[in-house]
């Protein structure tokens, strides 16, 4: 009994010490995390920096599903690929188009031995993309949504998912998901651009599309002013869509202004100049009448 009393005191002392330490750590953590990110939720509190890693893995999983399991491992050499195929091509296919014959995930090679040759019958060894089978692209979506849940600041999750949702005719879902992205990343020009495209191409609401695309352009300029190498590819896309809207609305001076700016960055300035000339001709014709 005599021995038990000091043990009880020791337990109480340790408990008080742990409780005090926990309170202090909690105060310190809440103040530091508030500084880092106000919008982060449950996953941020539980996982900390790991959530970004999980988000990246889930995004990679979406890319695996896009290639229907035909995916190189870390041991297979691909032709120096950076990023994912989904993001590079499917993210903006209307500007680029996807070349299915020259996919960067092609790692086909001659089998080294009989085991290698034999094993190819038991795993996906034919390269087919998810969008080549009817509604195959829907299988990509859960991974993108999960990735966005873990890492809400990964913009590709929203833009790629919005593209595939639009291709499936799910315009409301695409808009809702992009708005989720904008809530987590207020004023992001890429998300605003995707939203503008929905209003322009799917909802045919030109006024709203113009407003959103102009906001996207303004936000791009704000960010670009702070960066050494701004994302001119996004700028080109915004300008193309804005110029198209103004041209279709017969607002040629503004359309020409956008096309003039686009010409500076475009790999094919002659084609843009041709469009400018056509509009100028149209303007002079209408002035003559």
């Amino acid at each position, binding site marked *: 009994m005599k021995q038990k009393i000091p043990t009880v005191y020791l337990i109480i002392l340790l408990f008080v010490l742990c409780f005090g330490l926990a309170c202090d750590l909690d105060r310190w953590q809440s103040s530091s995390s508030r500084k880092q990110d106000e919008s982060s939720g449950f996953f941020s509190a539980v996982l900390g920096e790991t959530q970004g890693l999980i988000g990246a893995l889930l995004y990679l999983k979406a890319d695996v599903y896009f290639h229907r399991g035909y995916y190189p491992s870390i041991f297979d050499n691909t032709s120096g690929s950076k990023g994912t195929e989904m993001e590079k091509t499917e993210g903006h296919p209307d500007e680029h188009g996807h070349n299915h014959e020259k996919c960067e995930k092609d790692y086909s090679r001659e089998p080294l031995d009989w085991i290698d040759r034999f094993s190819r019958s*038991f795993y*996906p060894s034919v390269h087919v993309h998810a969008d080549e089978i009817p509604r195959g692209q829907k*299988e990509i979506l*859960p991974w993108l949504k999960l990735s966005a849940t873990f890492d809400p600041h990964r913009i590709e999750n929203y833009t790629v998912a919005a593209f595939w949702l639009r291709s499936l005719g799910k315009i409301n*879902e695409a808009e809702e998901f992009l708005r989720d992205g904008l809530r987590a990343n207020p004023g992001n020009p890429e998300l605003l651009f995707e939203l503008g495209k929905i209003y322009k191409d799917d909802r045919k609401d030109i006024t709203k599309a113009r407003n959103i695309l102009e906001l996207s352009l303004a936000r791009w300029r704000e960010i670009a002013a702070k960066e050494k190498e701004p994302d001119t590819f996004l700028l080109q896309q915004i300008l193309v869509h804005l110029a198209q809207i103004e041209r279709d609305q017969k607002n040629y001076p503004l359309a020409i202004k956008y096309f003039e700016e686009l010409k500076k960055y475009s790999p094919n300035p002659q084609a843009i100049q041709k469009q400018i000339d056509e509009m100028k001709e149209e303007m002079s014709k209408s002035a003559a009448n």
Partner: protein
Amino acid sequence: MGVKLNNISALAGVSMREMYRRKDFYVVLILTVILTLAMGSINFFNEPSVAGYIKEICLLLIWIFALVIAITASARQIPSEIENGTIFPLLAKPVTRTEVLVGKALGCWIATGVALFIFYVIFALLAASREHSLDFSLNVQSFLAHWIMLGIVISMAFLGSVIFAAPSSNTTICLVVVVAIMVLGRHLNRLSLNMSEPMRTIVQVIYFSIPHIELFDFRNLLVHNYPAVAWNKFFLLLIYGVGYSLIFTLIACLVFNRKRLR
């Protein structure tokens, strides 16, 4: 090393009953169903026919739990008999050590097969309910390949149980070996090309000697709705798997026959 089939079947029956009395299987079955249904209840963009991610999670759980059940059950069979001293009255009966080992291994394999069959039935029902179609051939092939793969793992665990002193060390070693083969097995030969001698030859010898259990993993085919594997190649795969199971079982019998039990 003469064996009597009725002795083996009796011993297999005993170890099967022992496995079913334990609650491991029921727990993991309920856990798999709950986790899969929980994932399946999530709404992704109002698209109810999305099935890939549920199939992937369900198959991952099946693979993990089947491996854990098979290895933990097999690793403790012989050591627990020796530790409890029940091996002596057992061997006093007209049964040989080979019959004891083969009977117990067979019992574990059949019991794991029954558990695996229930898992695959649940998986197939789940996939069919989502996709409104079912590739019966590929599901059968996946189950059989998985079962044969577990046969290799069980025979490996039995070999480990007559070599290593404690079931815990045997379980850990078996799990590490199986996971290492699953991850690296297919790539060892390619990796060896970047190595210098003698490491290159050593890695190549390992590559050609190990049982390539990763070949029995049909999950990618199931998840991405590929067609069934050509049956001639599939039967070759089964023969390959049965061959390795027999090799490990025979070595285990040889070691067990020479082992001093006290």
